[in-house]
């Protein structure tokens, strides 16, 4: 697969990245390239300019900020997986990061790229949705904070505007229990269905690959809030959800899997 012709520049810092991205209407940020480059090779994306932000060390960090943990957008999946701070305070994230793709993918792909790409089939966005994380976007006019719930808009569509850069992800501490069930056929594969469940006050459940964007299971959460049993809540987990069909699973099978996996996730959290 040969991508269409494009120009390439490397950003020196965040301000430079913002300046460069506004220089060309069809420009795109390049982080790990592990979602963007495949799209370009299929010619499903044909940016005229790539602004490479992958070397911006200032955006590669995990910091303990008291109530929350701040993760720089350019932190690689591998570094999320190995972060001691995250392992102690938000253990679901290192676990989920460790299940993304294969070691090569985890050493190049970034958490910010995964979130900004907004793919409903990605693992980390669903986990962040269940965690009620906050995305921090930086534009030429300054920073804004976007709750995860409002961030994912639709198929590969997020609340970011084309000239904004995702700089940080803030994840609240205080996880009491968590579970992540990723169902796939080969260890390196994307999830056919994934379920992220977090107990932090109430129980939140989010799905991978059950729609065009990462989704919260309002059916399951609502049932649990009303005191339903695990089995009952799992049965209601896919209410209002209409998952896609593809080569790995029909919509009907996805619904079945989502219920089974939700039940297993909730059972695991019960211990």
């Amino acid at each position: 697969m040969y991508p269409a012709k494009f120009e390439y520049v490397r950003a020196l810092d965040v301000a430079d990245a913002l300046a460069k991205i506004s220089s060309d209407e069809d420009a795109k940020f390049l982080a790990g390239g592990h979602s963007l480059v495949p799209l370009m090779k299929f010619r499903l994306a044909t940016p005229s300019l790539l602004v490479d932000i992958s070397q911006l060390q200032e955006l590669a960090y995990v910091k303990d900020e008291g109530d929350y943990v701040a993760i720089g957008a350019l932190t690689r999946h591998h570094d999320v997986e190995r972060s001691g701070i995250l392992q102690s305070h938000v253990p679901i994230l290192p676990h989920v990061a460790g299940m993304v793709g294969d070691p090569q993918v985890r050493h190049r792909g970034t958490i910010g790229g995964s979130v900004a790409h907004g793919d409903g089939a990605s693992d980390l966005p669903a986990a962040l949705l269940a965690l009620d994380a906050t995305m921090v976007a930086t534009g030429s006019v300054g920073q804004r904070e976007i709750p995860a719930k409002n961030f994912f808009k639709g198929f590969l569509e997020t609340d970011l505007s084309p000239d904004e850069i995702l700089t940080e992800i803030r994840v609240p501490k205080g996880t009491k229990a968590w579970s992540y069930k990723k169902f796939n056929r080969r260890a390196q594969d994307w999830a056919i269905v994934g379920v992220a469940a977090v107990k932090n006050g109430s129980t939140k459940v989010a799905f991978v690959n059950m729609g065009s964007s990462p989704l919260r299971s309002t059916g399951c959460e609502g049932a649990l809030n009303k005191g339903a049993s695990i089995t009952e809540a799992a049965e209601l987990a896919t209410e209002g959800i209409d998952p896609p069909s593809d080569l790995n699973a029909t919509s009907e099978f996805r619904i079945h899997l989502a219920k089974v996996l939700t039940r297993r996730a909730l059972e695991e959290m019960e211990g």
Partner: protein
Amino acid sequence: MTKIAEHDMSVIGKKVLRREDPALLSGESKFVADLEAPGVLNIFVLRSSVANARIRSINVQRAKEAKGIVAVYTAADLESEWAAPMPCAWPVTADMKNPAHYPLAKDTVRYVGDGIAVVVAHSTEEAADAASLIEVDYEEQPVVIDLEEALSGRHLVHESLGTNVSYVWELNPNPVGLEKAFTEAKYVVSERYVQQRLIPAAMEPRGVLAVPSPMGGDYTLYSATQVPHILKVMAALTLGISETKLRVIAPSVGGGFGSKLNVYAEELICLALSRKHRLPVKWVEERSEGGQATIQGRGQVQYMELAADADGKLLGVRVNLIADMGAYLQLVTPGIPLLGAFLYHGVYHVANYGFKATGVFTNKTPTDAYRGAGRPEATYAIERAMDALAKKVGVDSAEIRRRNLIQPEQFPYNSPAGLIFDSGDYPKNFEMALEKLGYSKLREEQAQRRLQSSTKNLGIGISFFVEMCGLAPSRVLASLNYSAGGWESATVRILPTSKIQVVTGTSPHGQGHETSWAMIVADKLGVPIEDIEVLHSDTAIAPHGMDTYGSRSLSVGGTAVHLATERVLDKARKLAAHQLEVSEEDLDYGAGAFSVKGAPEKVMPLAGVAFEAFTAHNLPEGMEPNLEASISWDPPNFTFPYGTHLAVVEVDSETGKVELMRYLSVDDCGNQINPMIVEGQIHGGIAQGVAQALYEEAVYDESGNLLNPSLADYLVPSAAEMPNFELGQTVTPSPTNPLGVKGIGEAGTIASTPAAINAVVDALSHLGVTNIDMPASPERVWRAIQSAKG
């Protein structure tokens, strides 16, 4: 037959590290894509995006005007380049239909991926960009995708043929007996099995570089091929180039599995364009392109029938299958079902046998040889059917096999299909495998889990295979209408400095011949492996050869090396006897030197003999100078490796996910030259066969689009999906060749597919599941359980 492994000092039977690996691991090895040539032109092939259409028009004007473009050619522009259509070397019947097939499709495209135009540019990227500017106006026709539907002839792939049937090939030595077996049987098993299409997915995609020599009108064709020798002959004929003007080189080749046992359009196009432009022309396949442009494997619907008496003993085996040729016949497409035709009774004794194959055209990529070629299909059918028979008779699946195995005293076994199985002790191999697995204990655990209604269902799958390999006796190939021989050639040349060149006509692409062939020579001559260089895969260096496929290289090519070494040693002995002034019988040979019996101080090392042969100062009367011998060896029979393969799976009945928990095999490939290489072949083979059972399938939609050509969607399993393989062995030397070797290249693939599927069906048999089509994906398994529930 001596067991070579018993020689003490010998390197044979030792796990010698592969000599090929340092260069491969360090990136020093060169593959076609790595090769540079000054002034090279890169080409991109525009391929059909529809499965069946007349081409109303092609407009290449905009592409021609694009940046960096040297030329754009359609079929019409290249017509005068071809002296003959692309070759099919296996016309299985006299009336087989073989529509003319040219490197580019002219008025009609017949599958998605059929080449339409070639863009020639300085860079591949420019060529690809320009190709997107070519406008093709298609007049679409109804497509033929399904095999059973193809038979109906409602729509045609090749209208002028008036049928989709390419050929019908039958083997029915005793029709009356066969009929009687089925009427008199207590039990009859009738099954329908589907062999899905597979994408070979060799690690290295194909690639071609054609280089015209600056003088003399010669061409060098570099290709990622398994068959440089066959390619040379075929390319010369197709392009009307004298065979003497063409040299074919297969540089490092990253796997083939049969997919590089072919003569492809791109090889011929690059050669034709290098002739036209007088410049090197290069093409490297893209991974997803390969899903369509390289042959696929399997593709059959099999109707399998067994007749058995009250004890479950086989009375007759009858199979009728439809084989998917795809849109055209490639090099050996029609012959693939025939390679299995003789083996549908497997390792079981049966008196009555019938086989029938109908080759049909479809609007899909052509099929051809894929690891095991015909024999995995046969083994799958008989091994699944034996499980079905066990169910009918009401005995354990191990027991039904015991009752039917060919017994040791029946060897050499005259098979009902007309083969002579060379050697074997099947019961010994079978019981050893069951014992090692702890078969009865696992059956107990299975019963236990069922009592507890566990959702983690345990399944045990048995597959006992035998295959015919080591292609092969040329006269047998003649009786099958195969247009080539099955011999192999070797030259052993001891140079003046006593370094040794071994030239082989086999063409390794991952199998480690450089190591194994050197071991054979080192063993015979008692010299260090380091002194031996194995030369191959270049028709200028190794002019004669039949190349590498069908697990033939060791039993045919390795034997040729062995025999050539013996011949060189004979000559050396004559020379040494002459110079030591004794008779040949008075000489011993060992550790690289001749010595006189009874006078061990009188020695002449091989190095000395080599130098004497070179100077030729003092040769016996009539002896020619130089120490060199060449052999072409044609084996008297195939070889018949066999073995028991056992798979243990856990099937999650809630999600349908199959986990392969254990995999154990006891293989018998006769004597082993390098057990490490044997293990490697078995490992890869098992994984590849399990891949068919659980993961892989080339999926086509009803319009003939291949839905999963990329490795993101085509699920080649990785090491993470495989358990540790538990390997055992029995050693029954083959009497077919002096090394006593059989083949091991395909064994794992042939055996493991039914082992895995039998295990999955076994795991769910208590729920009423009797069949799951391949690959046993979670959804398929889940649906099978749902429909068994009713």
